[in-house]
């Protein structure tokens, strides 16, 4: 299986290296795997995720994401990488001035797909996340669970090779959480997309095989 994320002795730090969050982490994640990363609050889960979409550069060691060396990645390569990722945030990060439909196809707008393609894809994705009737509404008119489904639909819109999700159900009730987990499971199982989820708690009901890493005292360890 092809490697999607490879970390070797990865150290992530803030304040010019004075505050190390992740220390000497080594792991490999392959295509089509579903991975949970858990750990207590402030352990560095989100920091690790940020390094994967290039918001934080490695302080030491190597991190390869989708073939790009995050130490050497140029600005244009970083934009290219991000266009092929799906990212889901705990606080959704939707553009409130845009309709649900437009939010969903943001990655297609960025890549320059035609309006027709955007329209077809938006209809398909909104049907997939069961929000077809909300296409012309604005995010703030939706509930938290619905907004997160829009966020997941946006992450899926370009069939990314990797979905990074930061506490995707952190603000949701049980029902909405279940819907979001189903969507992410389906993406992994049916589209062979690698899904990496940072969460404080793994759902009790989960239908597919997954790997589990735990962050403790800056170290990233796999739980077998």
């Amino acid at each position, binding site marked *: 299986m092809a490697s999607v994320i490879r970390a070797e002795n990865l150290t992530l730090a*803030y304040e010019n290296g004075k505050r190390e969050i992740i220390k000497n982490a080594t792991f490999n994640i392959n295509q089509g795997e579903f991975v949970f990363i858990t750990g207590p609050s402030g352990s560095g889960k989100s920091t690790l995720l940020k390094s994967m*979409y290039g*918001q934080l550069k490695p302080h030491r060691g190597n991190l390869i994401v989708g073939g790009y060396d995050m130490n050497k990645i140029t600005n244009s390569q*970083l*934009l*290219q*990488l*991000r*266009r*092929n*990722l799906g*990212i889901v945030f705990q606080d959704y*990060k*939707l*553009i409130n*001035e845009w309709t649900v439909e437009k939010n969903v196809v*943001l*990655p297609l*707008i*960025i890549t320059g797909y035609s309006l027709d393609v955007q329209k077809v894809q938006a209809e398909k994705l909104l049907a997939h996340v069961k929000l077809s009737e909300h296409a012309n509404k604005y995010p703030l008119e939706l509930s938290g669970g619905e907004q997160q489904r829009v966020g997941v639909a*946006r992450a899926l819109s370009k069939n990314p090779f990797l979905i990074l999700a930061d506490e995707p159900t952190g603000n949701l009730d049980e029902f909405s959480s279940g819907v979001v987990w189903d969507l992410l499971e389906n993406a992994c199982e049916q589209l062979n997309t690698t899904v990496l989820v940072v969460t404080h708690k793994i759902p009790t009901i989960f239908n597919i095989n997954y790997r589990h890493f735990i962050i403790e005292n800056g170290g990233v360890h796999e739980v077998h």
Partner: protein
Amino acid sequence: MKSIKDHIMFILPLLAMLIGIEFVLIFNRITTSYENKLKQDYAILVVSKRKLTTPYLRSIDSKIDSVTPMDKKKIASEVISGVQKDNIESIIKDLPQFYRVHLTDYVPLKKLREIKKELESIKGVLNVEIFDKSYESRYALFALVKNTLRIFVSIMFVVSLLLIIKQMEVWQLAHKKRMQIMEIFGAPLMLRSGVLFKMAFIDAIISTILTFIIFAYIQAESSSIETIKFLKNESSILLNFSDIFVWIVTSLVIVIISVIYVAFKTSGISDDF
């Protein structure tokens, strides 16, 4: 409502800048016209034994535009009343030549004195009169008005620029979240700033149109105002259509610089994102 306020806060300083620029353009046209009139009315008087020609004097100083010999008989007529007709011819013959020397520009007094020295140094030149007292008082008034307007417009320009930057900071805050979300999904700078460019271009066009309306109104009104009726004789001295091009270019340059400033300031995803 907030959106209208955002537009007005950008349009007003831009409008002030364009009006300032137009004032400078108008004043330049008025002063050029006035300068030409002063230049035409003014001439250095040169008394010379040798013949002076325009090409020769131009080779001495490039600010010399032309030289015209004065009619000796006219000059002599002032002093020869009562002189016998036979002697008149010989007096005129012995008189040196009088010349009026015109300049290309209405030069400062210092330069005028330099030209006087240059003319005096020509062999055969007996006297050079530059009428410096009246020249100086006219030039001082002319320079005072010109400099006052320049200072006024410069202050107006700086204040307007500060207001535009302030408004840009408001836009930056308003659009930060959207631009950061787009950046995280890989949007290039130009795409992220698309909305800002659109808003700013619309405001630039509105400012240009408003400036046109204001000056078209002033021009229409000017013909009925007695004190500035003289402007009517100067074709399109108030509103010149080439000015519209200057306004458009100026407002677009300001808009592009402002938006790029905001885009770069917003570039990069903040830690609290």
